């Protein structure tokens, strides 16, 4: 049997969920025994590959770049996992939703800047009007909540998934 093709990607999140994945410590070896990591911030591949079996998506959809990426990821992934509270509900990034992006940009790039007071128009991706959870944009196959999800939960859920079991998280996760 060929190995599962596993990808991980980081959109509008803080990388905490990826840190928690690394916190599975030596059990990472068990995971890579069953799966090849074909794309991830922790491996050196530039392009998101075709034919991915499982993708862990950390972060909410906040910018035009996030939007492009998630659509591409969805089209190339069989099982898409919303990895952590930001992808699940918007979480901390979505705290700007009641206000919209402009007051935030003004605060960060103009009021709080000592030099070059201007909102960037190039290089930095443009913010969307609303931060959205992943399932608002593309279908999600499994939600793995937590801020971050615990290393044990990540390991157990991934192992169950890689072994072809249905993942029932009732009683096992916690928001926040």
């Amino acid at each position: 049997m060929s190995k599962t093709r596993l990808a991980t990607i980081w959109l509008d999140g803080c990388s905490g969920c990826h840190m928690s994945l690394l916190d599975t410590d030596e059990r990472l070896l068990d995971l890579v025994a069953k799966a090849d990591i074909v794309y991830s911030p922790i491996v050196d591949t530039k392009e998101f590959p075709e034919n991915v079996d499982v993708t862990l998506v950390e972060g909410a959809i906040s910018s035009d770049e996030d939007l492009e990426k998630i659509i591409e990821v969805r089209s190339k992934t069989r099982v898409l996992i919303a990895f952590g509270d930001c992808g699940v509900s918007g979480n901390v990034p979505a705290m700007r939703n009641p206000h919209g992006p402009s007051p935030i940009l003004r605060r960060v790039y103009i009021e709080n800047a000592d030099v070059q007071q201007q909102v960037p128009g190039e290089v930095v991706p443009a913010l969307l009007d609303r931060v959205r959870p992943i399932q608002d944009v593309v279908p999600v196959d499994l939600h793995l909540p937590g801020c971050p999800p615990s290393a044990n939960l990540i390991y157990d859920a991934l192992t169950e998934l890689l072994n072809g079991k249905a993942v029932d998280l009732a009683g096992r996760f916690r928001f926040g």
Partner: protein
Amino acid sequence: MPRVSAAPAQKTERRSALEQRIMLRIDGEYITTDPGKTILEVARETGIDIPTLCAVPGLTSVGACRLCLIEVKGNQRLLPACTVKVEGGMVVSTRSERLDKYRRMILELLFTERNHVCAVCVSSGACELQDLATQLGVTHAPFEFRNPNLPVDASHERFIEDPNRCILCTRCVRICREVEGANTWEVGGRGINSNIIADLAEPWGGSLSCTSCGKCVQICPTGALAVKGRATGEMTKRAWNVTDLNRMRGART
């Protein structure tokens, strides 16, 4: 003659108390109990757990959250266990796929209605809403998040009111009215714009009726009412002291 007449009266009383006992079934179990109790009370006495958010032993039940919905045989409608009284011959089920679906949907709607950011909430780790999501397996909400813009009331010297975390269970309203007797809290507005208000929708800190007793803070199931100065996850509640308070006052709990 008082002695002679007293004896039969006592007997009748005892007999009628026995006759009044009623029998019903909850989740297949036969239960004999006294009339006048709610289905929730009887279920809990029997060790059957029904999820709740607004019901508190010792306070009036209002059926606000609908988490305790149950099925009664012969009735198409789902009924709230916290307000419906037991009746002889009732056949109640507290678990079914249909109930599960609705209970989960209620939580999904609560999470999308306001701004619940457990990651930065004072009550994270001691929140009944967060716990129920875990228990019922609500890992996400399939509805659009409303993300309303609701100002926090930090005008009180010792407490803080954050409507972003409020689920409108009205526990605060009831404990303030029924235990403290101050009547500070009310529900203002209509429908989706309903909110908890102090006095006539004034800043809590300026309230003339509030005694600053803190009972509402302790009974609030979420991070909507908290002690000032607590950081993420630092607010733990002593919700059930209301039962003790009422017991001390001799009220039925």
